[in-house]
C-alpha cells in the first residue's frame, strides 16, 4: 500500500506540473479603445491579473480617465469570461460597452490559453482584429523567453514599443 502510494505520487506531481505549465500560459488580452483617438490596451493573465497595460490612444492622457478605462475593462471581464466559453471565435467584437467606450476581446487559443478581447466603437473592426493578432504573436515571443515567468508582468520595453507601434498602425 505504502509502496503504491510512493510510486503514484511522483506521477501525480509531474502531471500536475505539466498541467500547470500549460494553464499558466493562459492570458487574456483586453483592449479598450476610446473614441477615435483614445484606446486602452491591457493583457490580463489567467489569474485575472493585468500583466500589461498601455494607453495607446493619442488624446486624453488624464490619469483619471486611464483609471476609468481600466475599471471598464475589469468589469467587462465578467461578460468575457462568460461568453468566451459559448463562442468559438477568438475575436469577439464589442462585447461590452460603457458610455462611448466599447470593449473588444481577443481570446487566445482554447480559452484556457490566452484569450484576447477587444472593446471598440464599432469602427475599423479589421484593424482591431489585426492588432490583436499581431500582439498575440508578440506575446508568444515573450512567452518563449525562458526568463519570463508566465503569469508575471511583462516589463519588456521592446514589447511595449512594438505594441504602441502596432496601435499606431492599426487603431
Amino acid at each position: 500500500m505504502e509502496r503504491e502510494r510512493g510510486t503514484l505520487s511522483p506521477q501525480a506531481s509531474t502531471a500536475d506540473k505539466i498541467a500547470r505549465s500549460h494553464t499558466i500560459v493562459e492570458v487574456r488580452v483586453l483592449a479598450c479603445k476610446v473614441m477615435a483617438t483614445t484606446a486602452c490596451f491591457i493583457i490580463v493573465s489567467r489569474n485575472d491579473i493585468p500583466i500589461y497595460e498601455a494607453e495607446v490612444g493619442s488624446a486624453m492622457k488624464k490619469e483619471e480617465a486611464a483609471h476609468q478605462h481600466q475599471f471598464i475593462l475589469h468589469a467587462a471581464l465578467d461578460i468575457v469570461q462568460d461568453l468566451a466559453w459559448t463562442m468559438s471565435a477568438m475575436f469577439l467584437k464589442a462585447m461590452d460597452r460603457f458610455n462611448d467606450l466599447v470593449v473588444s476581446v481577443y481570446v487566445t487559443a482554447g480559452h484556457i490559453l490566452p484569450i484576447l478581447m477587444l472593446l471598440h466603437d464599432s469602427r475599423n473592426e479589421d484593424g482591431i482584429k489585426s492588432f490583436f493578432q499581431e500582439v498575440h504573436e508578440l506575446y508568444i515571443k515573450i512567452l518563449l523567453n525562458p526568463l519570463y515567468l508566465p503569469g508575471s508582468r511583462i516589463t519588456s520595453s521592446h514589447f511595449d514599443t512594438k505594441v504602441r507601434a502596432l496601435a499606431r498602425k492599426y487603431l
Partner: protein
Amino acid sequence: MEPDVSIETDCEIRVAVLPIGGPIPPPRLRDYLSMLSGHRRVDLSSVSSFYTEHQKSPFTHQPWDSGSLRFKYVVGGAPPSPWEDFQSCRKTLAVVGLCHCPSSPDLSLVADLFAAACKPYTSALVHRCFAFCPSDSQLDEGKKVDKVILFPPSDRQTQEIHMLTMVQDLAASLLMEFEKWVLRAESAGTILKTPLDSQSSLSSEEVIKAKKRRLGRAQKTIGDYCLLAGSPVDANAHYSTAIELARLTGDVFWHAGALEGSVCALLVDRAGQKDATLEEEVKYRYYTVIQLYRRAYLQDNAQRVSTVSFELEAALKLARYLCRQELAKEVVELLMGAADGAKSLIDASDRLILYVEIARIYGSLGYQRKAAFFSRQVAQLYLQQDNSFAAISALQVLSLTSKAYHVQSRGASQKQDTLSNSLGPSHADGGKMHQQSVVSLFESQWSTLQMVVLREILMSSVRAGDPLAAWSAAARLLRSYYPLITPAGQSGLASSLVNSSERLPAGTRCADPALPFIRLHSFPIHPSQMDIVKRSPAKEEWWAGSAPSGPFIYTPFSKGGSNDSNKQELTWIVGEPVQVLVELANPCGFDLVVESIYLSVHSGNFDAFPVSVNLPPNSAKVILLSGIPTKVGPVLIPGCKVHCFGVITEHLFKDVDNLLLGAAQGLVLSDPFRSCGSGKLKIVSVPNISVVPPLPLLVSHVVGGDGAAILYEGEIRDIAISFTNAGTVPVEQAHISLSGKNQDSVISIARESLRSALPLKPGAEVTLPVTIKAWQLGMMDSDHASSKNSSGVSRISKEGSIPLLVIHYAGPLTYNESPKNGDFVSPGRRLVVPLHVCVLQGLRFVKARLLSMEIPAHVHDSLPNPIFVDDGSAEVVTSPNSVNSLVKIDPYSGSWVFRLLELELSNPTDVVFEVNVSVRMDGTNNGNGVTSIQNYAADFGYPKTRIDCDFSARVLIPLEHFKLPVLDGSFFAKESQTTDGLGSKISNPAERNSKAELNASINNLITKIKVRWQSGRNSSGELNIKDAIQAALQASMMDILLPEPLTFLFTLAKNGIANEGIKSPKELSEQTIVAGDSSIQSASGSNTRFKGSISAHEMTPMEVLIRNNTKEPIQMSLSVTCRDVAGENCIEGSKATVLWAGVLTGIQLEVPPLEEVSHSFSLYFLVPGDYTLMGSAIINSATEMLRARARTDSSEETIFCRGSPFHINVVGAL
C-alpha cells in the same frame, strides 16, 4: 425613476407609513414596522369578512379564493409623483400612522397630527393611525378618539394578530374605495393628466385627439385599479381596450403604459407559473413596451419633460424578470442599453437609482465585477454630493465593492471565512500552502483599480467622519501598494493614518495591518546552557538517544526521525523567558515608529514583552521578541501585535509568507524585504511549541574568571568550575561526560563531588575541580600560534579544539502539579561547559640523539668513573661526588660502551623554562631486591636545565645505568628466577622470539623518561617526547638492552692464593678493586680504604672472574693484558714493567652457564702508576646466538670477547 422596480410593481398598493406624535425609540419603531411590513400580501379570502358590497362590484372576475392584494409600505412617505395619473401604482393610496403612546400622551392631539400628516397625500383613499403601548387612561380616552386605533398592550403574538386584522380591514376598505373609484370613472369619466399633457398646447385638432385619447387613458387607469384590486382578468380586459384605443389615437406613451400593465396582469394571472411561452410572451411585449417608450421619448424630445426614465425602468423590469444565468447575454444587453440611457437622465438622483438597480441586477446575475463597477459609479455620484450622509452612503457602497476588487478589509473577510470555512484549516496549520492556492490568493489583483478603490474609500470615509474605516483603508493602501506610491504619497498616507488615529480612542484595534512587514526570522535555539533533553526514564543513561551524542555534532541517524515531519518541535519552560527573532521591514520612504510590538499568542499561556522599534526609510531590522510562558500546554504564535500609527493591529506571519511566495512567482509587485536590502530567507514555519513545567537550570562559571586559561603545551592545571542551580526545581540527577576535541587532555574530573552534592537545591552551588593537561598543538595550530605570536595576539582560544564538559541533569521525574497524565516525564537538560583553554606553544623539542662513547677514551678526561660500592643487595652506586654522579656504571652490567640520550630543546616563547629530567621508577620490579634496581631515586638530583627565551639547550640522559636493570627486572619476571646474576642471558632464543616482550620493555623504558619543565611560579608540565625518544633509540636498542655474553671482573686476592669464591657480593665488597684514578687520590672515605693495597715492588695476587651471561657453557681461551698509562703492553715485550706469576694467556676455560669461573694470577708492578687490566677471550665453537650478538655472519670468524678495562693505581713503596 423609482428604485426597486419590477414588472409586478404595477399591482402594488403604495401605503405611506408615517410616525405620528412624540418621538418613537428606534427599536420600537423597527418593531412596529416589522409587524406591519410582514403583511405585504393580503389574501382576498381573508379580506372578504371585512368587505361589504355596497353596489355591484366593477371587478367582475375578482378571484376571491386565490387572489390577493399587495402592499408596498413606504416608510416616511414620499412626495406625490407627477406621473401618478399615468401609473396608479405611483399614487399613495393609503396612509398609516404609527404612534408610540408613552411618548405622546394626548390621543386627540395625535389624531390631529395624523390628519395634518395625511393632508399632502391627496390621492390617499384610506387613513389609519395605529397607537401602540397605550396606558389605561389612554385606553379609556381611546374610546372617544375613534380616529386612533389603540393596540392594547399584550405579547407580540397577540399584537401581530391584531395587526393582521387591522391590515385586512385596511385592505377591505381600499378594495371598496377602488370599486367606488372605478364605478365613478366608468360612469362620469375622469381627467388624467401627465406632465407631458400639460405641456402640449391645445390646438383644435389636438383637442379632438385628446378627447379620443382620454377614453383610452381612462381604460388604462381602470385597468390599473383592477390590477391593484387583485383582479388581473378584469385588468387585462381594460388594458386590451386601452391598447386598442391608444394605438388608434397614436397615444404612444399610454400605449406603452397599457401594454406594461397587461404584462403585469398576465403575470399576476399566471402567478407561480413560469414556462417558456409565458416568458416569450413577456419578453415580446416588454420589448414592444421599450420600443414604444423610446418612440414616445423621441417624439416628445422637444419637450422639457423627459420620459426616458420609463424606458429605462421598463428595461430594468425586463432585465430583472429575465435575470438568470442562461439569459445572461440578453440581460447584459438590456442593462448595457439602460446604462447608456444614463446620459439622457437629467436628474442626478435618477442616475443614481439607475446605477444602483443595474448593479443589483448584475450582482444577482453573478457578475460581481460589473456590479462593483456600477456600485463604484454610484459611489462617485454620492461623492459628488457634498454632504456627509452622501459620503456615508458612498463609503457603504464602496465597501460593498471592495470584495469584487479584492481589497476588502480583513475584518469583513474573516467573518466570511468563518462562515464559509473554506480556507480555515489550511490557514490554521500554517504549513506550506500548495503553490496553486498561493496563486489563488493573488488572483484578480488589479493593482491600479485596487488603489483607486482604496483611495476612494479613504476619501469617502474621511468625509463621512469614520476614522476607523479611513485608517483601515489607508493601511491597506500603504501595505499592499507601497511600490506604486511615490514617497510623498506614502508620507501622505502615513499622516492620514496618524490623523485618523487621533480621532480614535486609544487602544483601538483594526483588523487590517499597516506597516511594518513582519516575518518570522528564527527561533533561537536554546543556548547550550539551557539545552533540553528528552528523558527516557527506563534507561540508566536517560539522555541517550534523544540528543546527538558521540563525536559528531550532526548525526544523520538521529536527525532522520525528527525530519520526517517538517515541523520541528520546540519546548519552552514555564517561567523561563524565551526569545523569537522576527524581521521587520519598512519599505516606505518615511521613518516608521513602531510604538510597541509583541508576539501575539492566542493560546493564552504566554506573556509577551512589548518592544518599541524605530525603522528608518527602506530598512529592515531583525529584532528579538521575548516573553515568558506562563502555563503548561501548547503555544500558538500566528503573528505579532503591533501598535503603530496609533492603532493596534495583528500582523500574521503567514500573510507575509504568502506575499513572499507571490513575489517569487511574479504575482506581487515586490518583496518588501528584498527591497529593503534584506536577504532572501527560507520561509520559517512556526514550529509546534509546547510548554513544559519548570526544570532545574544549572549555571556554570569557572572559579577565578571565565576567561580562557592560557597554558603552554603539556602544562597541567587544575580548573575549578562551580555550578549553581538557577532554576526553581532541584537537580536530582546529573552525569558528566566529555565531548569535543582533545578530550584526553582532561586528566581528571571530580565526578564524586558533583554526585555527592545531589540533589542540588535551587540556589545551591557545587564546585567541581577538573585537571587539564594542555594538549600538543598540531602542525596547523603551531603555525597559527606562531604567526599570532609574532603579531602579539597569542591569547586566542580556539573554540574548535577545546574539550567540552557535558552535563546531563534533570529534576524530579514527574511534575507533581500535573497528575492528570501520569506518563508525562519532565525532560532533562544538558549543560555544555567549554573548558576554555588556550594552548600556547611551549618548549619546542628539536631532536633526540643517541650518543655512545667508550669509557676508556674518557679516562683521562676524568669522565665517568666506575665506582663500585658495597652493598650486594643493590648495585647502586652513589658517589659522594655530585659531579661524578652523573655517570654511574655498574661493573656487573658488563656493557662498557656508554650511551647517552641527548635531547635538544629550544624555547621559542617569551618565558624562561627550567627542564628537569627524571626517571620514574615505579613498581615495575618484581620485588626481587637482589636483581632489580629500583632503588634509583626518582629524581637523580640533576641540576635543572634553564632554557632562556629563544635559546636552545641540550639535556643528556644516561641510558646505561638505569635502563638495563629495569630490563633485567622485566626479564626476570618472564624467566625463572636465576641465581644472583644481574645479567641474565638475554639473547636466549625464547627472549628473541618474543619480540612483543621486547617492545613492551622498550616502551616501558621510554615511558620512564620524564622531561618535566617549569616556568615561572605556577606553570609546570611535561614534554611529550616519547615518539622522539623511541625514534632515537630504535636503531641501537639492542645494544642498550642486551648485556655482553661474558663479563670480566678483576679482584685482588688478599690471601695470595686465589680464594675459591668471591661469589657473594658481600665478600666482594670488601675486596673490590676500585679502579680509581685521580679522584682516588683526592679521596675521601671509601678511597682511603684501598690506599696502599697495591703497591709497587710487591707481588699482588689477583684473580679474574669470568662470568657467563648466557645459558650455555662457553669454552674459551682467556688472556689477560695489562697496559700502562701510555697504552703500552707492559707484560710482554722488551720493556715490560710488570712481572707476573701464573698464566696470563691462552688459558683454556669452560664456563658453565650463568656461572663464574675464577682464574688466579699475580702481578708484580715494577713502576708505580696507573695501569689498566683487561680480560679478553676467544670463544671456541661459538653458538649462533653468540655470533648474532657479535653481529657476524660467517661461522669461520672467531668470536672475540673483551671485557671492560679495570684501572689499577699502583703506588710507590711506602
